[in-house]
């Protein structure tokens, strides 16, 4: 009498459904998310109940790090090049086309103008290692040493429709914020956005 053979179940699982799910999620993420830009410094913003979203285009971001360093960036690569051309002309510095291109790829930076050229000529890997000292500002907002003023001025010259967003870190001290504020006010900029995280308003609160 031959031994009874047990029918073995197939060890393969149908993966089709799982593939469907995986690609559905993938499609969702591609459509909803936007790429994270490489920032000069990590800034943790405070949160607010404000529901106004930061505009996508035509935006100038002034970052304020926790150590009080000021970073600056504008959104469009084309604008960045014309901004750099403007400021180079004003300061009497020349940039090679290569350095210009390098600059147009940086979403924001925190360097004094006289260090910018040497930074741009560094290879990519070394750029990431450089500790950016921040853009010089001062409390009066109009002194010749205040370089943030020049950047803001030349950025607006490159694109007049730029809106200004201020991105401050939780731990940044108020006097440092005041320096940035004074710089903007000295140029008669009195309206800007503060970038914040989103938090839920208290129960029962309704927007007007």
């Amino acid at each position: 009498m031959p031994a009874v053979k047990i029918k073995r179940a197939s060890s393969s699982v149908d993966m089709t459904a799982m593939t469907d799910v995986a690609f559905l999620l993938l499609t969702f993420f591609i459509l909803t998310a936007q790429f994270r830009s490489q920032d000069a410094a990590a800034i943790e913003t405070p949160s607010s109940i404000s529901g106004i979203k930061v505009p996508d285009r035509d935006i100038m971001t002034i970052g304020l790090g926790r150590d009080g360093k000021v970073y600056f960036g504008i959104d469009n690569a084309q604008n960045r090049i014309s901004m750099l051309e403007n400021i180079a002309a004003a300061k009497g510095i020349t940039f090679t086309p290569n350095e210009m291109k390098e600059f147009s790829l940086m979403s924001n930076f925190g360097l004094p103008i006289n260090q910018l050229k040497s930074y741009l000529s560094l290879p990519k890997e070394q750029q990431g290692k450089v500790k950016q000292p921040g853009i010089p500002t001062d409390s009066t907002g109009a002194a010749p040493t205040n370089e943030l003023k020049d950047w803001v001025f030349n950025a607006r010259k490159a694109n007049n429709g730029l809106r200004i967003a201020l991105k401050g870190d939780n731990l940044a001290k108020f006097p440092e914020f005041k320096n940035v504020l004074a710089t903007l006010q000295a140029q008669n900029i009195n309206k800007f956005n503060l970038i914040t995280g989103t938090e839920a308003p208290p129960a029962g609160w309704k927007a007007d």
Partner: protein
Amino acid sequence: MAEINTGGGGGKHDGGKVRSKKASTRVDMTPMVDLGFLLITFFILATTLSKPSSMTLNVPDKTKQEETEPIKASNVMTVFLGKDNKAYYIFGKAANEDPEVKTVGYGYEFRQALQENVKKVGGEKFVVVIKPTKQSTYKNMVDVLDEMAITKLKRYALVDQLTPDEKKLLKDKVKLDA
């Protein structure tokens, strides 16, 4: 996972006909799943999902000097943003009239204090003056401005200069070196 092909097979059986081997119709999807999840992981890590929100801040024009009617001290709540996430406020009296300095934390406590004082004065006349000191942080300022939005107070001002009276008051009452 390797698939074990149990059925089929076109081997020559004893006396049977020679049949062509039928290819299995099932395709192994495992590598495709792997690829899918790899891409998902990449997108999750490389992108940001939520866009940050922003609050608008309008500051008065410094170049124009507008004549304004002086506001009565009895309607004013002056908030000093101190160190270690504490706020101090005086209400109803000017700094040189020896007012009571109260200490509040940000958030709920501060909101309650605001609402109490609004009731005493009435919404229309109530003015909040926010004075951040040198030791306060940017977060403190945003928190207070946010409370203004929550309590829907429209009349507030952000003033970055402290008067000598106020400095003395803070030093005497709460040992804050403004």
